[in-house]
């Protein structure tokens, strides 16, 4: 697009929204959709219904939290324990949204609009925002983001449903390979996103502690591996920083 077009103040909302939807053909969007194939299979293999799997993608829209939610539900954890585990896995959304707001906000942007749009902020759309939005005129940012974020969510709801339905007709190796996408994607994506030592330690400790506590049958294994492993990693990270 030319600079001349960018200067048009009356560029309508729908044009920017439509341009945003074209972002669905980008690499990050495609990787996310492949990962959601794994999520649909995970839901089916975990004994959820099609409606529950689709509802989860639509209402939660944060894949790590959805995987924690499925894991907690299938282990028979209570509503309160599941709430705590999912909430702990989603805390990072607060700083992400807090960093995203100043980028999309205009002085006259109503708060309800930001509250509603914030639902679509998850890792993929957040990274995409920081890549694309700064180059756009401020008035275009909300519709452009909305176009991308809404189509991304809708497509992944469809992917969840399609993969859930197909999983039953697949040979066992194919279903297993799709299921395997979820842990492998998070293992690598979390490694790539870990910026401070504490996060890297937390990744390593959690990988061991989660299965170990489950195997030892201590109960609330995920919650303990998060709180215990994370706190341990936090202090290990502090020690590391105070070394010369």
């Amino acid at each position, binding site marked *: 697009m030319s600079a001349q077009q960018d200067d048009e103040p009356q560029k309508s909302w729908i044009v920017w929204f439509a341009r945003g939807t074209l972002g669905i053909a980008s690499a990050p969007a495609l*990787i996310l959709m492949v990962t959601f194939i794994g999520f649909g299979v995970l839901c*089916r*293999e975990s*004994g959820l219904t099609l409606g529950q799997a689709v*509802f989860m993608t639509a209402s939660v829209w944060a894949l790590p*939290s959805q*995987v*924690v939610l499925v894991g907690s*539900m*299938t282990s*028979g*954890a209570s*509503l309160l324990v*599941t*709430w705590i585990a*999912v909430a*702990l896995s989603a*805390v990072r*959304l*607060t*700083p992400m*949204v*807090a960093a995203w707001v*100043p980028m999309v906000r205009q002085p006259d942007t109503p708060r309800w609009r930001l*509250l509603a749009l*914030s*639902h679509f*902020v998850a890792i993929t759309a957040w990274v995409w925002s920081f890549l694309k939005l700064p180059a756009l005129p401020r008035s275009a940012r909300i519709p452009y983001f909305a176009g991308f974020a809404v189509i991304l969510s809708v497509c992944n709801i469809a992917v969840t449903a399609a993969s859930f339905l197909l999983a039953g007709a697949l040979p066992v*190796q194919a279903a*297993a390979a799709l*299921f*395997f*996408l979820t*842990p*492998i*994607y*998070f*293992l*690598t994506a979390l490694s*790539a996103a*870990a910026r*401070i030592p*504490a*996060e890297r330690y*937390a*990744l390593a400790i*959690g*990988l061991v*502690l*989660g*299965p170990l*506590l*489950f195997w030892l049958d201590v109960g609330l294994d*995920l919650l303990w*591996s*998060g709180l215990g492993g*994370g*706190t341990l990693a*936090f202090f290990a*990270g502090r020690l590391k920083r105070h070394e010369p």
Partner: protein
Amino acid sequence: MTTTFETLGQGWAGDFGPYLFILLAGFLATDIWRWLGVLAGNRLHDDSEVLNWVKAVATALIAGVIGKLILFPTGALAAAPVELRLVAAAIGWGAFMAARKNVLAGVVAAELVLIVGWLVLPG
């Protein structure tokens, strides 16, 4: 509180029980942080110690789930030998690191090892 995903489906909520469970423990437990983010604006400092602890806890929690999915999966993946799952994950991570932290390289390598290993191994 002993309301679980299973029992909520049999209680007063009936068929909507599981959906209510997802709404409370899923939607509310995630979107509450997004709403807080909108209200906080940019007042949160990205390098505060509290935030570092939160990041570490969230990472360890998700890592715990990853470890469980690899070692104790449900359904089809459980049919793959545990050694193969571990080797595939390790090679996938190695490929990811070797390819300068390229997620796609790691995912493709791990999947290839899992599928080829499964088809080639006896039994």
